[in-house]
């Protein structure tokens, strides 16, 4: 396939002397792969290697009354039974290495299980078969609990508590809300001025990364009281840090050796096999191998999480989207892993690559009794992109417009303000859409062919609008008040926030959406709005002042750092 470059489009914007794209490049590891010489962790076999297998929960949700290992312990080849009490620090959350979120997941669970396949016990034996046979001989007495598998059901007040660390079944954002907020402008007023309202519900299932090599690690004692660990991990130091925490050892006693990852795609960052292999090695003094088999990789290995999105767009007849509201539910499964972060990332991506002057979003990280979700290629963004682009097609249909033209008319242009208060730069969606339409022989009108990302942006489109904020969804409120989120209904009037800083645009700067210029960028008329008056109270709605800084918050824990959707990782 030949590659066609359109360097002319941005010739004055960036150095386009591409060194790799369009040129044949040999993958750095391909010679080893095709000659069968790439070293994988599982090639490092040791004399007297022991094998680890887990007893796993057959239930979505259950309390463990008792675990009887008497028969298993007597079985041939069994060297050690590893219980939850053998794990030095049996409580962790992956992103605790970044101080994001609270510990919520044991390595081995002996009190309660919250998903099918959760490890309850581990057995170390001379052979894999002996370990499996002993696993089959363990008797666990479960008290089955009611479970919840749907994100919206999990938010209902009477839903079973999946994860005791987060008893509201939602991750706590910024120590304050049960969801991640994004507010830009005033969607409700804009909805009332829009020609059409278009709503959609979109849903994505979990996706398994399905690497050819399943997750696994081999650990062995090393000199100077250290442990060597050969691992399939995608994130060597992440796994090392996680292991050091769970096993309560100094990280300099751990010697991690990666190498060839036999397929990862996000499914090898959760660091579940390394701590187990090293723990077994510590407890037995022997080299130990812990490898998931294929069913475990499928059932226990964390997938890309399921997502559900509700979108509501206010659209003018000429195709301009003037308001977009999101309600999103990420299915984290039973434990947080990386879902909390996926939502931060996804929120920064809203409302897609489009300049929409009013955006509002509430995204929930929801705990359910499903397999915990984790990373997978662009997680946090790909799911909502599917929702956004499906919605764009729906909007195009509703206003009777060419779907490509609809995207062009709404696309970011250089200098525009994004909803998360960063300036759009190096925009190219318009050009991509134009070329795609041309290549697909799907003609667009001349005026759309003439549009450019380089022109028409900035100015009024660079303005941060006065923004309506609210205090809805404080942690615990939903569960105690019995109000499940209602994605398509109008938010109740905003509770007045603490007095905002003085300098801010006045509500009279509210753009008029009804009478745009013939083609975008639209030029708002001022001062008198022609549309219906804004629904919000005129005097001084809560405002945001500076683009880069969220309203000042009380620093509650010194040295506590966390992600913020609009400023990245912050140290407080």
């Amino acid at each position, binding site marked *: 396939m030949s590659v066609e470059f359109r360097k002319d489009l941005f010739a004055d914007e960036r150095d386009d002397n591409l060194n790799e794209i369009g040129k044949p490049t040999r993958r750095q590891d391909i010679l080893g792969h095709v000659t069968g010489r790439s070293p994988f962790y599982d090639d490092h076999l040791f004399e007297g290697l022991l094998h680890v*297998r887990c007893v796993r929960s057959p239930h979505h949700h259950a309390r463990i009354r008792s675990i009887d290992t008497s028969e298993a312990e007597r079985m*041939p080849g069994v060297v050690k039974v590893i219980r939850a009490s053998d794990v030095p620090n049996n409580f962790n959350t992956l992103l605790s290495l970044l101080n994001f979120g609270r510990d919520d997941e044991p390595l081995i669970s002996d009190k309660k299980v919250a998903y099918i396949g959760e490890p309850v016990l581990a057995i170390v034996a001379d052979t*894999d*078969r*002996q370990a*499996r*046979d002993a*696993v*089959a001989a363990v008797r666990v007495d479960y008290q089955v609990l009611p479970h919840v598998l749907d994100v919206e059901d999990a938010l209902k007040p009477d839903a079973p508590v999946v994860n005791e660390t987060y008893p509201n079944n939602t991750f706590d954002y910024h120590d304050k809300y049960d969801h991640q907020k994004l507010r830009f402008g005033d969607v409700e007023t804009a909805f009332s001025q829009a020609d059409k309202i278009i709503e959609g519900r979109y849903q994505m299932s979990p996706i398994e990364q399905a690497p050819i090599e399943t997750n696994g690690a081999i650990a062995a004692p090393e000199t100077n009281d250290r442990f060597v660990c050969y691992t399939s991990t995608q994130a060597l130091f992440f796994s090392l840090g996680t292991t050091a925490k769970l096993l309560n050892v100094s990280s300099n006693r751990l010697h991690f050796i990666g190498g060839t990852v036999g397929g990862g795609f996000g499914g090898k960052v959760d660091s579940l096999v390394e701590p187990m292999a090293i723990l077994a090695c510590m407890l037995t003094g022997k080299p130990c191998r812990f490898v998931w*088999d*294929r*069913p475990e990789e499928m059932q226990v290995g964390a997938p890309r999480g399921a997502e559900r999105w509700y979108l509501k767009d206010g659209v003018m007849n000429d195709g301009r989207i003037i308001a977009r509201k999101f309600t999103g539910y990420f299915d984290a499964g039973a434990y947080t892993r990386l879902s909390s972060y996926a939502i931060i990332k996804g929120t920064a991506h809203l409302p897609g690559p489009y300049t929409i002057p009013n955006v509002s979003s509430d995204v929930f990280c929801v705990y359910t009794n499903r397999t915990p979700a984790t990373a997978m290629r662009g997680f946090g963004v790909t799911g909502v992109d599917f929702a956004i682009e499906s919605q764009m097609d729906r909007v195009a249909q509703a206003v009777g417009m060419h779907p490509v033209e609809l995207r062009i008319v709404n696309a970011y242009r250089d200098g525009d303000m994004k909803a998360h208060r960063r300036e759009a730069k190096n925009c190219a969606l318009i050009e991509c859409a134009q070329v795609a339409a041309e290549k697909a022989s799907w003609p667009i009108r001349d005026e759309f062919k003439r549009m450019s990302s380089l022109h028409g942006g900035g100015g009024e489109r660079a303005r941060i609008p006065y923004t309506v904020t609210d205090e809805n969804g404080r942690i615990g409120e939903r569960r105690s008040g019995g109000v499940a989120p209602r994605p398509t209904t109008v938010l109740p009037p905003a509770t007045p926030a603490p007095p905002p800083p003085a300098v801010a645009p006045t509500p009279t700067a509210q753009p008029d959406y009804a009478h745009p210029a013939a083609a975008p960028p639209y030029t708002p008329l001022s001062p008198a709005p022609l549309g219906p008056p804004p629904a919000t109270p005129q005097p001084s709605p809560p405002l945001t002042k500076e683009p880069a800084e969220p309203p000042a918050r009380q620093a509650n824990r010194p040295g506590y750092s966390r992600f913020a959707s609009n400023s990245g990782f912050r140290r407080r």
Partner: protein
Amino acid sequence: MSISVKTFDSAAEAARALIGDRTARFMGGGTLIMRDINEGEQSFSTILLAKDQALKQIHARGEQIVIGAGVTMAEILSSRELDFLHPAARSVGGPAIRNMATVGGNLFAAHPYGDLATALLTVDASLVLAGGEQGMPLADLLREREREPRPVVMSLTVTRPQQRAFRFKKVSRVKPKGVSLMTIAANLPQQAGRISGARIAYGSMGAAPMRVPAVEQALEGKTLDETGIAQAVTVATSGVEPPTDAIASTWYRHEVAPVHLKRLLLERAS
């Protein structure tokens, strides 16, 4: 439990050993049993093998062809006598699997496997068992294949279909090696342009591959065109209770079965 392996000279001896031992499995090519062993399956601990050469033979007697149960998919593909079964054999796994997987094993392969068995149902396959019993229809075996003790199949006898009468389609989501969403085999002999003695079988549409009498009856005496097959398409899933699995739901299989059946019936014979 450690796994023990017992090897016998004849399939009959292996069959006798199987009757007395609930923890034993007779192994053909090993594509299913070795996977179970690797995954620590607890239901058996003994593997029985037979070195019987009779298991490996293919020979034709007129229109009848005898296929040893130990014949592999790859061996079917290299047999000219069995050319009508090539599409079915080729639909099983990839080359490595086809080199190991046997005809006999395919008869016991749990849902969603058993594509070859689906094809064999339409060519009047009857079985010779290792105990000596002859003439058991394949459909009878498939209906009760879970019942212990499982018989050891020595060979199958099939009847070569009329020229261009045999059709086969495996519908899967992943190509070329995906498991079956629905497999359809059709043997449609014609007399004076009309179907006479149609045999239709489905795979992955129930616990085991099965004949579909409702469709067969609806095709009797009909022509192979849009009008001729209309009734058969209407009753495509009559009497069929397709399962829900990771590949497709019961509802979905019900919905698409008529579509795939219609396409297969209207396909121009190659």
